[in-house]
């Protein structure tokens, strides 16, 4: 039982993926308990600072999930988010973050099954990558 258990900060949109997580729960779909969920009003609310903050504080992975394109509760928030995430993911992976630590998905509130499946995939991918080692803020070691 010495398997590495990653800690994954998960941002879920209130209107879809958060509902999907709820549906997965009431439907008794199993998925590993490695996520720490942060409920957000829209994937467009997630800023680069939040993602970097999670990584700096030692999260092994960050997963952001919102509504499918066209289904945003605020009409177009996830379209803006998509541009932002594209630039951020490229920039972070360009500067040394392992591909896979930062994950994105679109999951509607009717997709409890997809939620459980993606949760499995995300967690296993990050488990394979091992503990995060980069961009983590550690307190200085004082003799």
């Amino acid at each position, binding site marked *: 039982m010495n398997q590495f258990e990653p800690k994954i900060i998960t941002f879920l949109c209130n209107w879809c993926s958060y509902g999907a997580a709820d549906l997965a729960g009431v439907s008794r779909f199993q998925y590993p308990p490695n996520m720490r969920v942060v409920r957000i009003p829209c994937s467009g609310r997630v800023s680069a*600072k939040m993602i*970097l903050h999670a990584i700096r504080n030692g999260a092994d992975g960050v997963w952001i999930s919102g509504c499918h394109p066209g289904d945003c509760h605020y009409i177009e928030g996830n*379209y*803006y988010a*998509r*541009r932002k995430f594209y630039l951020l993911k490229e920039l972070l992976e*360009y*500067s*040394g973050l392992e591909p896979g630590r930062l994950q994105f998905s679109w999951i509607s509130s009717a997709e409890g099954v997809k939620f459980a499946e993606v949760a499995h995939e995300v967690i296993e991918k990050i488990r394979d990558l091992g503990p995060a080692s980069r961009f983590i*803020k550690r307190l200085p070691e004082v003799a």
Partner: protein
Amino acid sequence: MELNDTLRDIAKKLLEEGRVDAVLGFRQSSLAHMTEPFLATTAEQADQLVFNSCCRMNLAVYLTPDLFRSGRPESGKKSPRVAVTAKGCDSRNIVTQIQENRYKRDQVHIIGLPCTGMADKAKLLAAAPEGIDTITEKNGTLILSRDGKETVVSKTEVLQSNCLSCIIRNPVIRDEMAGDPVPELDMDSHPDRFADVAEIEALSPADKAGFFETLVSDCTRCYACRNACPLCYCPVCFVDESRPQWVGKTIAPTDVMAFHLLRAFHDAGRCTDCGACEAACPMDIPMRAFTRKTIKDAREGFGWETGMDLNLRPPLDRFDLKDPGDFIR
């Protein structure tokens, strides 16, 4: 007529006719290889304006609301009009600022400067290690003199690296030009335009992390790059926010990295690669390695080139149904 004379004549004329209240430009500083920003408000002061290969700063950084503030409606005074001398990259930053509603197009009078690139100060000092008293420019060469001794260098040898991949040398918007437009480099479609970025992209994640750790290891967090940048005008910068504190204040590698990453991300889709950040850096950190990546991504992902058209909204203020989305499950 010399470029500097034309520039001064234009500035004098504008000030004498009262068409502008001030002219923002460069003047020679106490060091031969440096210039300083200068706001001329009288025709006599306009005589100090210069434009040469050492005008590395981006003057758009000084077009702040404070500069335009004295003419608020309640004061009954007209909002001041400012003329600004602009290189190609400066003009693209002015376009960006107008797109972002910093000021209106008719508040600035743009005196276009045909630019053949700026001389890197480190390269100049390396060419003349004993120091430089005066710099004379002639037909693509720079003559660096010190105590009567002259060193002649070709301008292309000492250019800043961003000027070698410049896509716009003449201002995209201008009210007049202080000289004939220079031929463009046509780097826009050049296959090697982003060769430097591609080289880093090809590394493994561990090598990338190592590369950037070395790259920023000298950073003292003085924020000269931020202050020199015409994009960095937030009322409170993320580095100064304390609740929550997004970025640590120390020079520990992770804090430095977090600063440079977020700075580059805030400049995504807005950076014109003017090189003012690198020119301002006292530690000569090539931090354009970060922003160049965002320029490349905005171009490849959204077909976006910063500051080319006043009528377009910034790339993160709009979207397209066909935006790249393969990375999302």
